[in-house]
């Protein structure tokens, strides 16, 4: 597959990520990063700081004394959440528009990515390779970014793809995307990641999150964790739109992630709890999170 010219053109027109987002992404791609580095980046960005403080001071966290610095917000939001929410804020022009090519509502891509990120991080606890733990979260935030680019080219198609997948004409939504566009949200997402010069691990996750077995060996565990995290999000009802649940699971995850049925139920539960808390904090008393 190659990306058609018209779509490549739209990728090149995507604004670069903000400097803060870029630095955060590079910090967390290093498994031995220091939390202080994250705090420093956010604290220097006034807009990000204001938004994060508004979140932590929302009723969802029920704090009696207001938090007024990023450093003091860390214990409540968690450093992963700070990174995830910051990335979402920096790319809100991509995450928050309604995606007609998926019949998705405004903000749905963001909530899907957020829930998948939380789930991927929970899943990663059961990975044989524990070094992937922190990158899984960022990988989850980024994994479906390609949808925001191809959506417009899929306009008018979601029902055809859903019918095709129901009748067995397509094995999944991805195949529908490929039939109609000659590319899919993974390939395009990876091109967006390259356009943003994201670290190789994150580009690999975006590229291979539906076919993690094709990922380069060094990023495969990460790709599987995000692959499963996306399923956990969709099982919890938080998909993007018409494509929700219309994907195939790669059963070979068991070679990288050892999780029992009961443990998965715990993952689903923990993910739901954390997701609901964050979402209510983001939307508390505001028209939109961004």
């Amino acid at each position, binding site marked *: 597959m190659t990306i058609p010219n018209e779509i490549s053109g739209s990728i090149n027109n995507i604004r670069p990520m903000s400097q803060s987002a870029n630095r955060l992404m590079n910090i967390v791609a290093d498994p031995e990063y220091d939390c202080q580095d994250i705090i420093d980046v956010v604290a220097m960005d006034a807009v990000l700081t204001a938004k994060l403080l508004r979140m932590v001071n929302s009723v969802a966290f029920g704090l009696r004394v207001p938090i007024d610095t990023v450093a003091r917000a860390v214990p409540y939001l968690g450093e992963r959440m700070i990174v995830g929410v910051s990335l979402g804020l920096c790319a809100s022009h991509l995450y928050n528009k309604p995606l007609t090519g998926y019949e998705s509502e405004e903000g749905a891509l963001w909530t899907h990515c957020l829930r998948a990120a939380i789930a991927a991080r929970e899943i990663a606890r059961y990975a044989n390779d524990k070094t992937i733990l922190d990158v899984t979260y960022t990988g989850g935030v980024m994994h479906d970014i390609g949808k925001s680019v191809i959506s417009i080219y899929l306009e008018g198609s979601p029902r055809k793809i859903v019918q095709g997948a129901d009748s067995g004409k397509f094995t999944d939504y991805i195949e529908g995307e490929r039939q109609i566009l000659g590319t899919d949200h993974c390939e395009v997402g990876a091109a967006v990641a390259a356009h943003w010069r994201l670290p190789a691990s994150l580009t690999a996750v975006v590229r291979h999150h539906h076919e993690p077995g094709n990922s380069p060996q060094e990023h495969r565990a990460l790709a599987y964790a995000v692959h499963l995290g996306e399923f956990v999000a969709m*099982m*919890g009802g938080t998909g993007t739109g018409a494509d*929700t*649940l219309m994907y195939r699971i790669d059963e070979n995850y068991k070679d990288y992630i050892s999780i029992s049925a009961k443990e998965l*139920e715990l993952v689903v539960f923990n993910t739901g*709890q954390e997701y609901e808390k964050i979402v209510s904090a983001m939307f508390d008393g505001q028209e939109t999170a961004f």
Partner: protein
Amino acid sequence: MKTILLGVGDLGVTNKPGEELQAQSLGAGVAVIVADSRTGCIGMDHIALPDSTVSLRRAEEKPGYFADTGIAALLEAMKVFGSNISEGGMIVKLVGGANVMDPNSTFNIGRRNVQAVKEVLWKYGLGPVAEDVGGRVNRTVTVESITGKIRISAPGREAWEL
């Protein structure tokens, strides 16, 4: 029509004309719908997981979250509205339980949810007369009081009735 929204783990009951209960984006979760044909009272539980041993604390706060605690709580809540299973006339329907086909049978929580719900119902001598479950569908379900009419919708599809 006044719509009462049931979040994950919430259960609701109404017998007021002009009211409906709605559970959105069920995913693998299951909506257990009980309609009392004698009184017109309807109840619904938005179940997320089969088994409360995952979090006994959650089960205490929100029994509706799990199949093994939710159905008892739903039937108890309907008693307040004069519905009693011993008098018969209870019609049960199930919606949701979208399933991920995992050959390792770890991710098939949708199917485990539906199975767990049925096992609890059988203990009460109840069973679903109709169900719209499984598949790769993220259902939203709405039930009308008095008539017990059920509408189902999902993104990318025309709405349908059960």
